[in-house]
């Protein structure tokens, strides 16, 4: 049986050992990529990543709830009073100007998920109130009263034409 004590150049053997281990580890790591990647959303799921909303069917002052990526999105056709009121007001919990939350003032698009613990807030005249823990949002989707820490999220959306938006990025 060959003994380790008799090898001429132990450093060389260490180098070979370490090299083998590193190359092996890189190989195993690379082989993990497809498996981990397979758990990401598949192509058919990604195909549903955007939702098209026809705005012409939403009367002034009304809200439509549309589904985007399995989540509710509130699309509000705001009246002139609402717009005026929102542009003048401000909130303290998560201060943000109304104009930064809309692309066109008459259309408010927010994710219908309470930023507290994920419930769907109910529509009121003044905005929304969350049935779970009583958070209140105004007509700009900004949080007026906690426990919610943040304003309702404005998802990425684009106007395709005057009366059509597409929510989400493909």
């Amino acid at each position, binding site marked *: *049986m*060959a003994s380790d004590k008799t090898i001429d150049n132990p450093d060389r053997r260490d180098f070979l050992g370490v090299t083998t281990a590193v190359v092996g580890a890189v190989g195993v790591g690379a082989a993990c*990529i*497809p*498996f981990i*990647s*397979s*758990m*990401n959303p*598949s*192509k*058919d*799921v990604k195909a549903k990543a955007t939702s098209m909303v026809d705005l012409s069917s939403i009367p002034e002052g009304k809200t439509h709830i549309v589904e985007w990526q399995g989540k509710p999105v509130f699309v509000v056709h705001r009246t002139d009073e609402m717009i005026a009121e929102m542009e003048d007001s401000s909130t303290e919990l998560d201060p943000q100007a109304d104009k930064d939350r809309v692309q066109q003032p008459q259309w408010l698009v927010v994710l219908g998920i309470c930023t507290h613990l994920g419930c769907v807030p109910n529509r009121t005249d003044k905005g929304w109130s969350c049935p779970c823990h009583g958070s209140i949002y105004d007509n700009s989707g900004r949080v007026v009263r906690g426990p919610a820490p943040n304003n309702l999220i404005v998802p990425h959306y684009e106007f395709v034409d005057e009366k059509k938006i597409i929510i989400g990025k493909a």
Partner: protein
Amino acid sequence: MLKKAFSWVDERFPLSEVIKHELTEYPVPRNLNYMWNFGFMALFILIVQLVSGIFLAMHYKADVTLAFDSIQHIMRDVNYGWLIRYLHSTGASAFFALIFIHMWRTLYYGSYRRPRELLWWTGIVLLLLLMATAFMGYLLPWGQMSYWGAQVITSLFGTTPIYGEDIVRWLRGDFVVGDATLTRFFALHYLFPFIIAGAVVIHLVALHWVKSSNPSGITLHAKDNIPFHPYYTTKDLFGLGVFLIIFCAFVFFNPEFWIEADNNIAADPMQTPSHIVPEWYFLPFYAILRSIPDALGGVIAMFMSILIFAAMPWLDRSKVPGGALFRPGYRIMVYVFLVDVFVLAYIGAKPPEGSFVIIGQIATFIYFGLFLLLPFVSAREDRRSRIEGLPREAERLIREEQEELLRNEHYLRRDEDEVLLGQIRKRLDGEEQ
């Protein structure tokens, strides 16, 4: 730091001991050839099958209305789904190829003989588990071949006297292969690999108790053993590299090679494909099934064709060490057996008509005939070797082996061994003086 962590563990768990005992100081005969690589490769492919299978199960749907489409979903939509599925389908074929070579090695070199009978039997149990797992897995894509293969194989149990029909209905959970069958096959296909993994542990415990056999068939003296690590880890990894080149060539360049084209048509209970063929690894056994004109007899013959391997330690009572190396008669038999299995595989893939039937029946006769001939051949070889003796170098090794065995606490003394030792001593002493 690392050293400290190791000693912390060692105080609580025999980690270093296990590594030393099973790896860095585990003695392996130094004369193993590349035929001894296949067990390790089979273990590797088992892990590939486990991992790829678990990831496939994340996307597969075991429901007759969804199963076929969920495979298409995996192939087209799931990220790298094509790769994972082709790894799994090619892996199944590779698994059988490796296991068949592994078994052929055992037969050729007589590795099933004392003291490795239990090792051999656990291996046969593993083969049966593997076959059951592969068969159930093959139903899951719910293609035409999946469906009709399962229909035919479950029908085999219908040949059981009296209770046949009840058993078949129980197996299927339906009057035909249906949703109940698919769901239970999926559940069991997920379960069995873990039973296989457990059986592999038993197989390895048995191996590490009796140690590896070697081409000479003579248990070598301690000085002829080398530690498993680094000598055989290196050799196993080299063999694995060669295997992976071939395996990946199929996975990436010809994955459909192992998949029957008809299985890309969704299962249709109203329409049998014109020619049903099992997967290649079942072909020899399928040929045996069809060669027997009687239905029940065919099923018995098919099961016997695998179970008869378990009888090898009894059929082969030779005192000549090892397998084919020192045994000219046996050597011819193992090669005839190999050719015969290929003939059976070819017949299994052909429609049962004309000369194929006769050839299949002859090949089946030879298959079982070889096993039944073995006791007589080994007795004759024994007689010859008692008169002429083996090559003197081999006899010296046997003398060393026997003398070492006598010092082993687990060795059960046998008169026949001592007679053999006495004869060898007489021959060797006579010549050495």
